[in-house]
């Protein structure tokens, strides 16, 4: 009955052995512990030879329990379980003592660290003794992926998955796919036109038969689990029937509300109430902005159904589609449900647009203090000024233009401590675009550091200075104020130790990439974690960079943190490949860490008394009731039963059960008890 346990203590180079006496730990593990039949130490347990050692010793020593005292189980639990499995031992008889993160790295005093390590190993040895053999749970996979967000990340991921032959559903909350990349003028460090490289991808996506596109739609709820998600999608009322509409443009040409600030042009251009966001939009079919539409405004004011308002029906009247018009004021939100196997989250970022938090720069007060994305629109041939660099206030061509870097980035006082990573490069690009269009003008850039670690980036930023003549000043700007029609920029050049005052015509703030406003809520909907800045968290910063904390949900692009286009595309490809790996199997193996309600021989059948507290607390609805029947069909007892497919292994049921009739595999009562019991107290 009693297990033969092997204890393998890892030096982790010197990461552990420098502050923990590993030999002593191994020695103590054996002392007074008849269950431990083998102990050793090894330089790197996770290395190939280390794993081989583990496999060999399991076989040679006939071990049926293993404790590896090494780094955090989050690192190599999987490694060692797999190795043990290869050696024929049930992988769930392996436990990890976390000596590195919990001892050697945090307790520099060697005797102290060693004493604690001995304790930690003993705790895991005792737990291992109570480990039960578990077998992975098999679940079928729905071979369909969901991509949330139709920017460059989502498009890339969707195309990669669809090209491999799987169905993809893309949900985009705006009226068109394209995201921020469609807004950019030119891209660094090549200065190729963003739309020219973006639109072919958009078209490709629209034409791909494996991809179903829902624009103007949002995720309502995500239920289920890896391989078997149930996703509810809200198709927001577009007031336009996409099947009927041909995108003929008649409606938006007659719309009388022409002064609405265009979101696509970052408020610098105007649009109508029924509109397509930009000429290359996909789908190239309009959406009716009910907030600004005269008809809907009137209906709201009078509190009548929109169809009853007679204020303006110009778009409907002109719509040439017959007999049923493509415009429908009565359309309502529609919720559809899709079965999904894996999810790519590519919801992107939001530019810091509340620049009024920079009162010292006149943010939000002066029209000619604009953001980086606004400058992109100004410089874009499709933008509100058709590519002319003009001041928003009076259309004058700015002769002195000042770029301020790190606005909203690296500024903990304004609640944003991280570096937005792309601004150094896009500002260098802006100075070039400016110089290309305003030859006699001069660009000044206030920077703290110039960060350009990408391929060709250093050369690009130097080109801005050396060839294109931008003047870089090392210092932050303290204040921007208006003097006549000039903007006085009060900055510093720390390299000369002086205050620099520039009378500028226009100021561009290199504003930060921020998480989407609703990132937090969205993350909760998907049960994925996010960091302090509300960017979604990858499960491991180095080794699992696209995996979210929820199995089967992957991250791509700037929803995970600021990044530029090449990085975004690479990450999207990585997320797609993870999805493909998942969808390539017919069945998935899931960790058998699930709850189980005990079953015993008659006449007890189960110690469960059927109070169903467990059912009430289960977040997954995984607890069912089962009638235990006598031969004559009469019910002897009604007890709880766990649906393993739904159970996610949180253990809520086990902690709630007063009679401890339900236990969580891998963390069962005996295991926890053994851990508590094995701590050596004073």
């Amino acid at each position, binding site marked *: 009955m009693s297990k033969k346990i092997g204890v393998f203590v890892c030096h982790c180079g010197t990461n552990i052995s420098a502050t923990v006496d590993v030999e002593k730990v191994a020695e103590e593990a054996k002392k007074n512990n008849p269950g431990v039949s083998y102990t050793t130490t090894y330089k790197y347990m996770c290395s190939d030879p280390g794993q081989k050692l583990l496999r060999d010793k399991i076989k040679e020593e006939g071990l049926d329990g293993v404790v590896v005292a090494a780094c*955090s*189980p*989050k690192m190599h639990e999987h490694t060692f379980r797999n190795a043990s499995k290869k050696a024929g031992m049930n992988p769930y008889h392996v436990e990890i003592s*976390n000596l*590195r*993160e*919990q*001892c050697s*790295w*945090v*307790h*520099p*005093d060697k005797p*102290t*660290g060693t*004493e*604690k390590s001995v*304790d*930690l190993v003993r*705790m895991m040895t005792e737990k291992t003794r109570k480990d039960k053999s578990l077998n992975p749970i098999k679940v079928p996979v729905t071979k369909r992926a969901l991509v949330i967000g139709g920017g460059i990340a989502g498009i890339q991921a969707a195309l990669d998955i669809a090209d491999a032959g799987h169905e993809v559903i893309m949900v985009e909350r705006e009226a068109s796919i394209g995201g921020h990349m469609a807004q950019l003028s030119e891209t660094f460090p090549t200065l190729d036109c963003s739309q020219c490289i973006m639109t072919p991808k958009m078209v490709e996506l629209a034409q791909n038969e494996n991809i179903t596109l829902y624009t103007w739609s949002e995720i309502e709820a995500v239920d289920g689990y890896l391989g078997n998600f149930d996703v509810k999608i809200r198709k927001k009322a577009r007031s336009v029937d996409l099947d009927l509409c041909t995108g003929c443009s008649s409606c938006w040409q007659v719309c009388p509300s022409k002064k609405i600030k265009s979101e696509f042009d970052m408020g610098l251009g105007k649009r109508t109430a029924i509109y397509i966001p930009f000429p290359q939009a996909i789908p190239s079919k309009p959406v009716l902005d009910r907030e600004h539409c005269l008809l809907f405004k009137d209906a709201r004011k009078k509190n009548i159904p929109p169809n009853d308002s007679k204020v303006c029906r110009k778009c409907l009247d002109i719509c040439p589609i017959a007999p049923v018009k493509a415009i429908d004021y009565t359309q309502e939100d529609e919720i559809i449900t899709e079965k999904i196997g894996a999810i790519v989250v590519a919801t992107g970022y939001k530019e810091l647009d509340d620049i009024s938090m920079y009162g010292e720069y006149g943010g939000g007060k002066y029209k000619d203090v604009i953001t980086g994305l606004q400058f992109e629109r100004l410089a874009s041939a499709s933008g509100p000024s058709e590519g002319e660099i003009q001041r928003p206030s009076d259309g004058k061509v700015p002769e002195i233009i000042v770029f301020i870097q790190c606005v909203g980035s690296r500024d903990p006082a304004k609640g944003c401590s991280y570096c937005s990573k792309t601004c150094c490069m896009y500002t260098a690009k802006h100075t070039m675009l400016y110089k290309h269009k305003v030859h006699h003008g001069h660009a000044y850039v206030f920077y703290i550091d110039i960060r350009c670690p990408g391929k060709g980036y250093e050369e690009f930023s130097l080109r801005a200075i050396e060839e294109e003549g931008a003047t870089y000043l090392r210092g932050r700007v303290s204040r921007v104020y208006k003097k006549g029609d000039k903007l006085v920029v009060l900055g510093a050049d720390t390299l000369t130790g002086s205050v620099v005052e520039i009378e500028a015509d226009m100021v561009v703030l290199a504003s930060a990439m921020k998480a989407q406003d609703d990132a*937090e809520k969205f993350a*909760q909907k998907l*049960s994925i*974690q996010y*960091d*302090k800045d509300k960017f979604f*968290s990858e499960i491991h910063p180095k080794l699992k960079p696209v995996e979210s*904390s*929820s199995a089967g949900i992957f991250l791509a692009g700037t929803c995970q943190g600021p990044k530029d286009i090449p990085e975004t595309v690479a990450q999207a490809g990585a997320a797609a490949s993870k999805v493909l790996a998942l969808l390539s199997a017919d069945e998935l193996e899931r960790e058998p*860490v699930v709850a189980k309600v005990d079953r015993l021989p008659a006449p007890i059948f189960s110690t469960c008394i059927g109070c169903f507290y467990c059912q009430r*607390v289960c*977040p*997954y609805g995984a607890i069912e009731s089962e009638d235990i029947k006598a031969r004559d069909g009469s019910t002897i007892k009604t007890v709880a039963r766990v649906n393993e497919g739904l159970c*996610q*292994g*949180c*253990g*809520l049921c*086990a*902690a*709630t059960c007063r009679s*401890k009739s339900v236990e*969580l595999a891998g*963390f069962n009562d005996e295991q*926890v*008890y053994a*851990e*508590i*019991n094995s*701590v050596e*107290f*004073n």
Partner: protein
Amino acid sequence: MSKAEAKPENQFEPKIIAFLCNWCTYAGADLAGTGRKEYQANVRIIKLPCTGGIDPLFLIKAFERGADGILVSGCHPGDCHYNSGNYHARRRWNVFRPLLEFCGINPDRIQFSWISAAEGGKWVETINGIVDAVRELGPFESYQKLNTIGPETSGGAADASSETG
């Protein structure tokens, strides 16, 4: 290191058992390690998937075995990997903690916290905080000194779990 040097001889070193959720606080403790943030070595961690999976029995048992203090820590409200586990846990501690207090157990001996995977610093602060607080309280002698042998039974009848603390 300076801490170790400054440590007075025979200073009481409490033993604290920490029940942590796998997703937030355990990862936060890992992060403290990755960041080489030094803290006091008095804590022994027991990892569970979720704070919602911690039965008050575990805590009772830890005290019974001789723990001087207990920490229960998991994800911040709203961040639970299992959606609502920490909320249920919070409810339990809302009644369990006053019960222990009612029985004369100092509430500083049993602390609760939310520490996310990103809060390595908070982990260090919390641990140092509870260790210092419990050291101040001294050993939980009033409990540890209680007999583990019943009045009517002789030593031989005591079961295996009655090692001397």
